[in-house]
């Protein structure tokens, strides 16, 4: 992607607007190849999958690359208190103050708890973290999070792992219109066309995991997502042209100006 169209979050800039999750892959090797094919520069790692103190952790070793930053997530926690604890653990284990706050008390659909998320984010910002919250596509919640100092918002397109695309499009558009921080569409993106769609409506980036990890061919699909995100971004910045409409023949509403 063009050097002039980089995404900035906190102190980091990204040339790629595709962020990747690292769960659900058949092996660390496949995951590594898929991440490299995606050219993603920010990948999430579930803290619960990392073995603290083990320098040979397979997943972490697979992601050692100068172009890749790790984004630990708090997946598995059920409230703000646990999320704060998890973030502090992640900072120690992975040496990064970046954290993706994921609080889903509901184990079935893994839907984020907005009340606990806001509480956790407010506290984590005070503790010096770069906070990236996973949330519902709730425009008011996004503004409340922005006010407590999060560095971006990560609204969902559809329930996590559902591959259903942008079911929340109307709300995502409101969030994008109102937000002063980057908007990253997270969860629900099941195909490259969904990713392109999110970029076309003005998302700053997308985060994809399941659609790549469980595909029969993760490396090829990762590449397809990379191209789709780039295409969508270019379409957004270049502005899509809507369909033409017929010209009006008569002037009933403006005739008074000329009488």
């Amino acid at each position, binding site marked *: 992607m063009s050097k002039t169209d980089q995404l900035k979050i906190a102190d980091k800039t990204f040339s790629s607007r595709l962020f990747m999750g690292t769960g659900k892959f058949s092996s660390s090797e496949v995951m590594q190849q898929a991440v490299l094919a995606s050219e993603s520069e920010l990948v999430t790692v579930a803290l619960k999958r990392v073995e603290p103190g083990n320098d040979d952790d397979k997943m972490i070793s697979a992601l050692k690359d100068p172009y890749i930053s790790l984004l630990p997530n708090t997946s598995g926690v059920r409230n703000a208190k646990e999320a704060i604890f998890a973030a502090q653990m992640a900072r120690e284990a992975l040496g990064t103050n970046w954290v993706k706050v994921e609080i889903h008390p509901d184990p079935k659909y893994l839907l984020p708890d907005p009340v606990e998320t806001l509480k956790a984010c407010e506290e984590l910002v005070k503790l010096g973290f770069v906070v990236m919250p996973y949330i519902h596509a709730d425009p008011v919640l996004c*503004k409340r999070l922005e006010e407590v100092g999060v560095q971006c918002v990560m609204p969902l397109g559809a329930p996590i792992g559902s591959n259903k695309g942008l079911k929340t499009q109307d709300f995502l*558009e409101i969030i994008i*219109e*109102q*937000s*002063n921080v980057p908007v990253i569409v997270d969860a629900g993106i099941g195909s490259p066309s969904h990713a392109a769609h999110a970029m076309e409506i003005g998302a700053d980036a997308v985060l994809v995991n399941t659609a790549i990890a469980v595909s029969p061919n993760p490396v090829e699909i990762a590449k397809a997502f990379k191209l789709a995100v780039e295409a969508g971004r270019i379409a957004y910045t270049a*502005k899509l*042209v*809507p*369909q*033409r*409409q017929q*010209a*009006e023949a*008569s*002037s*009933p*509403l*403006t005739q*008074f*100006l000329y*009488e």
Partner: protein
Amino acid sequence: MSSFKHILSKYSWDEVLQSIFSKTEADVHSALQSRKRDLEDFKALISPAAKPFLEQMAQQSKTISKKRFGNTMQMYAPMYLSNECQNICTYCGFSMTNKIPRKTLSDAEIIKEAEFLKSKGYDHILLVTGEANKIVGVDYMCDAMKLLRPYFSNISIEIQPLDQDEYEKLIENGLYATLVYQETYHRETYKIHHPKGKKSNFDYRLETGDRLGRAGIHKIGIGALFGLEDWRADSFFTALHLKYLQKTYWKTKYSISFPRLRPFSGGLEPKVEMTDPDLLQVICAYRLLDEEVELSISTRESEIFRNNIVHLGITSMSAESKTNPGGYVVEPESLKQFEISDERTTEVIAEMLSETGIEPVWKDWEKRW
């Protein structure tokens, strides 16, 4: 702390103007058909290239406004409290250099004016003053609002810009909205028209919306005084201001007004003329840019223009306005800020609205909130 001053400093007036004038028919088509319009679309819609599309703009503006606001019109009345002023504004009847008798309403006079407006049906009132902090300062305004609260559900002000804590104090006393027009976003032209007094401070006025937003006001009204500078560029900067404020102070509502220079005793000729089609174009362009923003029209405009524009995007209007302190009952002959154009009574305006399928709304706020 961020403020609109930082945003404005990134723009060059001349480049904006050039960019508006370089918009093409294709840009206008694209803007008309876009589902979500941005400031580039807005530029196209206010550009000369959009002139042949005015009817289409009016059609869309009508449809969108109906969808969001229905067949209603919010009615309000201005109440001038004082014409004391320590500013020199080259276009204003209250300018310090105008040797005219000055008048500030007493408590008893405020009540008299209030009773008149109440008898006409008004429940939303806009208090207007010049800028004379010692005579008509925050304490005077708090006092006036305490007197007026029993009469009106919704009180707005159009007075000198204040500090955040002063706004907070007024909000505690029942203030709903504040209207502060930048007059022009052109810094140098602003200086020419406001050579003296507190108002000569361009940046303090520019950052008023930020202070109001931080104070947690319900509604902010902005706008430019058309005639001081190129209306297209000033409309663009007003739209930029609107978008910034909406994004930053998201709990606040916004309204835009479109004052054109009106004659007053010893008045100023407009530098850039704005015709009726121009004004209609700007009103429709704002509506196409933003479906929710309130658009207000005063009695500065003519009967025929007002009869038509009420269907094409406008959401609030005044009637029978007096622009002098005590103008309704107390002292009808005191000096006016400017001459109004549409002099029809409130009853006639209400009837005109009803006859064309619009319900005049008098009360749309609850003061206990």
